[in-house]
């Protein structure tokens, strides 16, 4: 996802990008990301939230972890899940580019609107 002209690097980045977006393509996984953005959840407390087995939730968490979207850390006997904001920021970059493009467009829109000729 980095802007680089080195093809090797681009390819590696593409692979990471695929993993990232595959991980985010699932509704449950997106929900886990949202919940774990502000609070830490244990896998078992997440499993209570969804109508699926502990193993299924554990699997979703594993996909998120492989994509770098969450990290797990230990708190006593619990394993807590936390959203990795840095990785979510990567997804934000495409949206930031859209924003920048639209800010430019809206500037031009504002100029054109004053002058109907």
């Amino acid at each position, binding site marked *: 996802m980095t802007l680089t002209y080195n093809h090797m690097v681009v390819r590696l980045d593409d692979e990471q*990008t695929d993993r990232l977006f595959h991980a985010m393509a699932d509704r449950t996984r997106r929900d886990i990301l949202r919940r774990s953005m502000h609070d830490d959840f244990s896998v078992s407390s997440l499993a209570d939230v969804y109508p699926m087995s502990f193993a299924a939730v554990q699997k979703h968490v594993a996909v998120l972890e492989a994509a770098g979207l969450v990290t797990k850390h230990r708190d006593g006997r619990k394993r807590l899940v936390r959203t990795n904001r840095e990785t979510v*920021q990567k*997804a*934000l970059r495409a949206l930031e580019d859209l924003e920048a493009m639209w800010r430019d467009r809206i500037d031009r829109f504002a100029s054109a*609107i004053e002058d109907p000729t």
Partner: protein
Amino acid sequence: MTVTNVTKDPIALTMSITAEFDVSVERAWELWNDPRQLERWWGPPTYPATFVEHELTVGGVVRYYMTGPEGDRHSGWWRVVSVEAPHSLEVIDGFGDDADAPMPDMPTTSMQVTLTETTAGGTIMVIESRFPSTEAMGQLVAMGMEEGMRLALGQIDDILRGDPTALTIG
């Protein structure tokens, strides 16, 4: 400041930008409805857009190309999903090939425009852009959508590198 609000949701894959103008909704709509006026703001001065087809009816197609400083041509298209003049327009937005035909394998985004009167007689315009799927967004990013945008659209401001706590989630 014309732009009054921007929200980006990296999990829902949407970007929404709100701007306020001191003119009527009817006047603001003309900038979408009249291809000659649309051309004046859609592309940057270095990549002016030319609209060759412009049919703002449900199912209608809008086609345009942008011409770069080297004479390079970048084409795009919209397919109109819904339109309610002068208040709303929703289109699917995609890339075109060298012959300006839609490229079927390329991901598309959706764009929703809403124009609302203010009590003072001005217009609030909201643009919401949505990636149809995380895969599509991944594909666009991976193919260098950013780079393409920078090259094609030039003059992009420094991008806000927001505080992560300012992320719009939900």
